[in-house]
């Protein structure tokens, strides 16, 4: 339990000195802070791109939390909203922003923050950064083509920085305590803490904070420990990947990459051995297929096809070429959308086909390994 931390969750109202844009970029670079919204992109790079755009930007805190399994952004905004607002203010002042916005999950519509706040629709893709810009501009909250980056021309044509609310809260702490303090948690390559939403077959599902590289077992224990034997863990959420239920497994990009997974936005879902991993994945794929924004032909046609093919596999409606069909469709939709929704879906599906390879074989023979037959 020594690896658990309370930084964001403890909050901090100590004074701090406002950095300039150059100072902030340098600070974040030294700290090695990456985005906590899922993609894990270095925060300093995006900040620098917006600063270099040469026009006064708009800064947006993204608390849409469209990922159904995640609750950490809501927890952060409920218990420590001040850290997020500090982070927003610091970034906005450093960049000379003309406006700041907070974009939040529908459950937080009653939040009062003193800056313009927009409630996101309850839809998976509504949290994607260009969808966020469209929502704030009063348009349909769906992603745009990426020919023009929002860091160049986003809300109202201004360079726009969309940052996950947890990323902003980390910035508020880094400015107070410095990059070395930030690096004292996590691993040298992946420094700092992250908020994890631990759920599934655990006694006390909820949000915990830990440094990257924390043992998977420790995260599960921090959420009350398993209530049943765990057969696999979904890390990274609906766009994440299945990893083995190995307590020693470090939760970091480096360690999870081997399974096609990454910490992503910090979702950890423990799958009990009584459940069927293929059925679980098919149901998630069905949900993801239902969440397509509907704009992009390959996504609109491909994701439902992937979902129904997986559903056939899960329901043991075996037919020749079923597995090849999953492989083929996955390759077909990858990279062919305005946003990364197809790619995230494919990541999940591919990891499931690997993690549940034994189940796949069983299902093709009309059997299921769920419930302890393994």
């Amino acid at each position, binding site marked *: 339990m020594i690896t658990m931390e309370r930084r964001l969750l403890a909050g901090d109202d100590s004074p701090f000195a406002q950095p300039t844009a150059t100072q902030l970029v340098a600070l974040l670079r030294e700290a090695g802070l990456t985005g906590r919204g899922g993609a894990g992109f270095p925060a300093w790079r995006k900040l620098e791109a917006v600063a270099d755009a040469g026009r006064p930007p708009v800064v947006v805190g993204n608390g849409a939390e469209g990922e159904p399994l995640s609750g950490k952004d809501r927890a952060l905004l409920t218990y420590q909203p001040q850290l997020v607002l500090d982070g927003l203010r610091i970034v906005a002042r450093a960049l000379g922003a003309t406006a700041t916005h907070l974009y939040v999950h529908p459950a937080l519509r009653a939040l009062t923050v003193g800056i313009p706040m927009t409630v996101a629709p309850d839809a998976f893709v509504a949290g994607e950064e260009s969808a966020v810009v469209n929502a704030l501009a009063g348009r349909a909250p769906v992603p745009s*083509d990426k020919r023009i980056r929002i860091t160049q021309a986003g809300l109202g044509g201004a360079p726009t920085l969309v940052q996950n609310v947890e990323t902003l809260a980390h910035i508020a702490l880094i400015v107070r305590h410095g990059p070395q303090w930030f690096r004292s948690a996590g691993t040298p390559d992946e420094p700092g803490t992250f908020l994890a939403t631990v759920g599934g077959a655990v006694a006390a599902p909820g949000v915990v904070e830990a440094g990257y590289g924390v043992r998977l077992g420790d995260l599960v224990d921090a959420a009350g420990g398993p209530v049943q034997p765990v057969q696999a863990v979904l890390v990274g959420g609906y766009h994440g990947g299945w990893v083995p239920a190995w307590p020693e497994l470090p939760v970091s990009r480096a360690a999870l990459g081997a399974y096609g997974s990454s910490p992503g936005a910090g979702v950890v879902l423990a799958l009990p051995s009584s459940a069927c991993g293929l059925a679980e994945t098919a149901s998630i794929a069905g949900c993801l297929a239902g969440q397509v924004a509907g704009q*992009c*032909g*390959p996504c609109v*046609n*491909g994701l439902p096809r992937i979902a129904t093919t997986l559903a056939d596999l899960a329901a043991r409606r075996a037919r020749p070429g079923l597995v090849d069909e999953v492989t083929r469709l996955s390759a077909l939709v990858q990279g*062919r959308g*305005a946003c990364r929704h197809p790619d995230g879906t494919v990541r999940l599906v591919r990891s499931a086909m690997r993690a549940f390879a034994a189940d796949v074989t069983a299902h093709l023979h009309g059997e299921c390994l769920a419930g302890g037959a393994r």
Partner: protein
Amino acid sequence: MRLHVDWTACDGRGLCAELLPELITEDEWGYPVVRTDEVSPRLEKAAGRAVDRCPALALHLLRR
């Protein structure tokens, strides 16, 4: 030059696959599959024509 499909605009009309079969094929729904988005100088003219003829204006040639 790099070929880019704006998927929010593409209607899968298939002209690009006819005009630039070297780089573009069609999937089972009629949407373009870009084999490689790198456009060699030899193909730039054909690519430019495909971009020009796209009824949805969804195909773009980008400078890197």
